């Protein structure tokens, strides 16, 4: 970029805006982590100061690890998130491939129908979903959550992936057909690797709401064996007394798995982008 085009004032404002946004976005996260290492008095007396020698305490973490089965909560959250992402990506990509690759009657209409879920929140159907799960005997199972989250993730996956799949060269797919690849092989071996950056984007967008969701675990799987982390943390929030140490510690711990997943996906994202640039 040429120097002449960047005025220091303008770039100053840009940086100011970015720094302000970063602070606003990180503030609650930092506050949560900082306060999770303080004793109860310090949390209330000076919530904004860092833990000092006298106020430092890991009592929250101790409570979390002792009380309740937090390892199992984490496990449930991870299983639900990973499996839901897997199915949402798999079925979303398949539907997107069909919509972008094949000409059939009602193609556009089908695409619109599948994308409607982006505009209508799935929670509107909670009662019907609960009735369905009860009838199917799936209440208090992780399967119930996985089914709901897969359905919740599909519209966005189909919408984004079908746009990306349209950009995959027709010649490449036709070369595969001439070489005798089946339509499944073309999908899995030619198209999917080329839309990997888009898959990573969809995975990130799908993952966060699933991990953070409290609504469906509370309604569909509140049993002890199927509790997720967000639901599990609720035991420390009472009507009259809230164990803030424990709540903050649980939330701080809950950040890490999702952070790791994000790092994995975002590496894919960046690799995909650079691979496209040099090609």
């Amino acid at each position: 970029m040429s120097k002449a085009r960047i005025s220091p004032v303008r770039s100053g404002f840009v940086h100011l805006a970015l720094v302000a946004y970063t602070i606003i976005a990180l503030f609650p996260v930092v506050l949560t982590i900082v306060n999770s290492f303080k004793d109860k008095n310090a949390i209330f007396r000076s919530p904004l100061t860092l833990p000092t020698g006298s106020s430092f305490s890991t009592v929250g973490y101790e409570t979390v690890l002792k009380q309740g089965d937090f390892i199992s909560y984490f496990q449930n959250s991870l299983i639900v998130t990973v499996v839901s992402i897997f199915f949402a990506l798999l079925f979303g990509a398949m539907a997107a491939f069909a919509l972008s690759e094949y000409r059939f009657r009602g193609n556009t209409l089908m695409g619109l129908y599948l994308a409607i879920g982006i505009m209508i929140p799935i929670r509107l159907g909670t009662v019907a979903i609960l009735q369905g799960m009860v009838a199917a005997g799936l209440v208090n199972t992780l399967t119930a959550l996985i089914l709901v989250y897969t359905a919740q993730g599909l519209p966005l996956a189909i919408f984004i992936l079908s746009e990306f799949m349209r950009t995959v060269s027709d010649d490449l797919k036709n070369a595969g057909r001439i070489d005798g690849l089946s339509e499944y092989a073309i999908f899995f071996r030619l198209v999917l690797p080329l839309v990997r950056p888009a898959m990573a984007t969809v995975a990130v967008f799908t993952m966060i709401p699933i991990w953070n969701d409290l609504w469906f675990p509370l309604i569909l799987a509140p049993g002890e064996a199927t509790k997720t982390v967000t639901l599990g943390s609720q035991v420390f929030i009472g009507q009259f007394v809230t164990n803030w140490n424990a709540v903050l510690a649980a939330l701080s711990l809950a950040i890490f798995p999702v952070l790791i997943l994000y790092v994995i996906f975002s590496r894919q994202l960046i690799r995909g982008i650079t691979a496209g640039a040099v090609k």
Partner: protein
Amino acid sequence: MGSLQLKSIRKAFGGHEVLKGIDLEVKDGEFVIFVGPSGCGKSTLLRVIAGLEDATSGSVQIDGAEVVNTPPAKRGIAMVFQSYALYPHLTVRDNMGLGLKQAGAPKTEIDTKVAKASSMLSLEQYLARRPSELSGGQRQRVAIGRAIVREPKLFLFDEPLSNLDAALRVQTRLEIARLHRSLKATMIYVTHDQVEAMTLADKIVVLNAGKIEQIGSPMDLYNKPGNIFVAGFIGSPQMNFIEAARLGDTQAKTIGIRPEHITLSRDAGTWKGKVVHVEHLGADTIVYLETEKTGLLTVRLFGEHKFAVDDIVYATPDTSLMHRFGADDRALG
């Protein structure tokens, strides 16, 4: 082996008819080129032959066998695409061998065939590389190699040189011509570049708006164009078309004369005119004249000539090489 027969092929997308009844016969070992302006249906026709598009009606026969219901992989064809269409995640070796691998050929057979094809195209040292590590010309050679390895009855080329720069284009053109001679295979080649068509083809098929305008050898089309479209499409610079009435010919509607069949003189000649523009190409000099009788006229002279804009010159056509076209735009005998 390697003949092709098309009978009244029609193809419509929605209500729009792209191919309007194509009949064509290609003999074993022929190099046939489909040429025509953009949107004339030449690529669609190639795709119908390959089986990548279904014709709305008509029959496609390869070696006498009807293949309309045969999937592309089983038609005994290989195709080279304009965009190379190499598998980005496979090495050159795997790119070339994939077709045979899918057909269930033993590994040793695949290896020998890949080795043979890569030595033909001097690709041996690149076999372990991926397409992204190759230049454009090398990629297109790999794509051609992938076709050779399959030992197809029909080679189909879809504008294979369009993405290459001018020097590479000439080089790859020679390579394709050499391949055709050594493999003696039937090749069908689509291009919009008439130079490629003239230099490579045994037989050129000129397509326009979904119909075949004329089929013939390159020199047939050059010397005896069947109608105005072919006359204008084959040859560069384009043939001059003059209203016949202005030259006193009452039977024909249009008179055509190629730029290279006109001579110029400063002293005397048939048509007096003024030079509008001159292009010096070294081997050729292209002179654009505005004459009273014929309007704008393009003249191609061999070698260097010192004409300048606004010079008054006389143009003389070689009357034995004039083409006459009737009211229906067809050539008059």
